């Protein structure tokens, strides 16, 4: 067990930091520090391509697909320096962190050639079509249908909460390809081009006024017959494999964004005197401790090379960070006092924090609610009997 980095790794850190800082001071200074995922989307797409040109987009991927074959430690370092330099979140995080690894694990050579270089180059932005109005926590009950017709899949139905669909080029969907099938059986995993008449995207305005999520309607939308990953009817297996990638190295980059949020809260508390309140101090200490433990939890998860069995500890990660961030949002409002009510006002410097308070209510819902997370932990990690299932 070792926490320190080697001299070569520290050199790599310096290289990452130098390059990222230079970009944020130069050509891409206009996007530095943006917290929202939707702001300046076109410039953010240019940033994706810029990363691709300099081979910083998917450093953990094999070089043949546009990566650097970077070690775990190097990926950790890059994720940390990325956030430290104030670089905004990746608008193609779904392509880079979910679609790409899924293709690497389950795709055919032809599919890898078609998609991976373009994802790494920032030319193909992906979004994810899993949830439906009636398939939320019970994800396997999807109703969107897919049928093969004249060498094409024809897709009909509705997806919801498709994050960033409005700026994406491709969407992957799970759809029911076997008439009359129920639950996880009879689903197929398809990659579809978004720019076509059969796909209609409508934004959903959220409680923070932003619109990162969308409803996506499929009306005789099509894709070629070889657009599926895996085989017909085994889409659930692919979807579950994909969700496991959500606990990858990207979690460390996400944590650095959390670091920036906590630092902003600490700065506000020092400025307005809340830092002198012993109760606030206790809560800030708890937040600091929670964030540090999140980092070492992620490092443990990533250092675990035994993938043959369920990593129970990894199952606790989602509810841990989501709850931490929701608590941070509530703490931010207590630190700001009545100034926390102020939003979207020119010259107001703490705007990040009230927005965090609102946005973090989604964290404990999307990607599996805290309640579903607890079920999963109890059933998969602790071996408790499964919830009784009603007839679908």
């Amino acid at each position, binding site marked *: *067990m070792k926490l320190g980095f080697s001299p070569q790794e520290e050199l790599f850190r310096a290289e990452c930091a130098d390059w990222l800082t230079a970009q944020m001071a130069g050509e891409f200074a206009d996007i530095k520090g943006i917290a929202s995922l939707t702001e300046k989307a076109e410039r953010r797409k240019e940033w994706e391509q810029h990363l691709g040109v300099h081979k910083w987009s998917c450093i953990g991927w094999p070089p043949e697909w546009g990566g650097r074959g970077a070690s775990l430690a190097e990926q950790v370092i890059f994720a940390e320096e990325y956030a430290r330099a104030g670089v905004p979140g990746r608008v193609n995080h779904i392509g880079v962190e979910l679609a790409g690894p899924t293709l690497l694990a389950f795709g055919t050579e032809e599919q890898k050639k078609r998609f991976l270089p373009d994802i790494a180059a920032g030319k193909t932005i992906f979004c994810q079509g899993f949830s439906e109005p009636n398939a939320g926590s019970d994800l396997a009950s999807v109703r969107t249908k897919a049928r093969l017709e004249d060498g094409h899949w024809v897709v009909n139905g509705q997806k919801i909460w498709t994050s960033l669909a409005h700026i994406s080029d491709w969407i992957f969907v799970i759809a029911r390809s076997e008439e009359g099938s129920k639950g996880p059986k009879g689903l197929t995993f398809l990659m579809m081009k978004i720019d076509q008449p059969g796909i209609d995207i409508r934004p959903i305005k959220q409680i923070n006024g932003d619109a990162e999520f969308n409803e996506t309607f499929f009306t005789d939308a099509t894709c070629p017959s070889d657009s599926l990953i895996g085989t017909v009817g085994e889409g659930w297996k692919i979807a579950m494999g994909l969700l496991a990638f959500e606990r990858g190295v990207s979690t460390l980059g996400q944590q650095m964004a959390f670091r920036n949020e906590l630092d902003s809260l*600490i700065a506000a508390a020092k400025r307005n005197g809340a830092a002198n309140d012993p109760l606030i101090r206790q809560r800030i*200490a*708890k937040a600091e401790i929670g964030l*540090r*433990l999140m980092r070492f939890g992620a490092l443990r998860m990533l250092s675990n090379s035994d993938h043959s069995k369920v990593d129970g500890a990894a199952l606790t990660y989602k509810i841990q960070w989501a709850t931490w961030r929701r608590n941070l949002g509530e703490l931010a409002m207590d630190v700001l006092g009545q100034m926390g009510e102020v939003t979207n006002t020119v010259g107001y410097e703490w705007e990040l924090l009230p927005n965090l308070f609102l946005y973090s209510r989604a964290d404990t819902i999307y990607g599996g609610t805290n309640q579903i997370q*607890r*079920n999963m932990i109890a059933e998969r990690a602790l071996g408790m009997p499964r919830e009784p299932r009603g007839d679908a």
Partner: protein
Amino acid sequence: MEFAFTEEQQMIGETAFAFFAENATSERTRRAMAGNGIDRALWSSFCTELGLAGIALPETYGGAGLGMIEFALVAEAAGAQVAALPLLGLATAARAIAAGGSDNQKSKWLPKLLSGEAIAGFAGMPKADYADGKLNGTFDLVAHGAIADVFVFVVPGKAWIVCADAPGVSVLPYTTMDQTRPLAKVVLENAPAEALSDPESAIGAVHSGGWICLAAEALGGAQSALDRTIAYAKERVQFGRAIGSFQAYKHRLADMMIEIEQARSAVYWAACAVDEGSGDAAIALHAAKSFCADTFFMCASNMIQLHGGIGFTWDHDAHLFFKRARSVQTMLGNGNFHREQVATMVLGEIA
């Protein structure tokens, strides 16, 4: 950077867990509780047969020369059984002598402490009077104080070794809630005391050793509380179903695991940071002590609740965990104290 145990560390952990699971049985612990709070035979075989007492102490004096990660694995294993052993004395007093004592003091005490021949107690107080080799003052709430042969006492900037059988030393045992680690008051009236030549190092060693010891045994205790509750959840049937199939029950188990996994990160982060001399060692220690103690208490209190009536009985072991957890929360600085240290690091002092 590799946040996983080496093969050697895994082996140490497995050996220690197997040893305590087999030997630190409920029956033996209860016998120790009815007596003076130590299973002396178990302590001897831990020190001599298993040879793990000196795991993190120098080889010159009979230790294994390994680090706090290895020590934490041992403390976690002992904590998992709520073993009635004076491990904390090793983690504090013996480490203080090793870090801040003279060669003579080390060779006089360390071999005896590591072989189990002598038992050490530790306490710190805000002040005591020392002049001409004599110490006056009261050192209260010394863990396993009534059976200790030697004490290390500290006040800010100073540390001493005091023999329990020296003239002027009165040891007054308390009856305590946690009978696996009873406390005692030690009153010194012109008691002969040997100063440790490097008190700052000694106090640093007490802090890292003591806090990691308590955090690691809390982690082990919390995990045991969860494991034992899981076993009960599978076997106990109500309304025609195993009670572990009810969401209200499952979600509490899940909450326990969520805290425990963070506590595990905390213990080994702190141990690693101390071993590597990292600048984060101080914040890691405060984080580990406060977080793990709270996790242990949360898990032990859930253990009672989730066992229902049987969990409230003396015969069931749940109360051993519950009482140990409560005592660990306060010992060597309570949660608020440690969190305030963290707050000072990130916010500065209160203006």
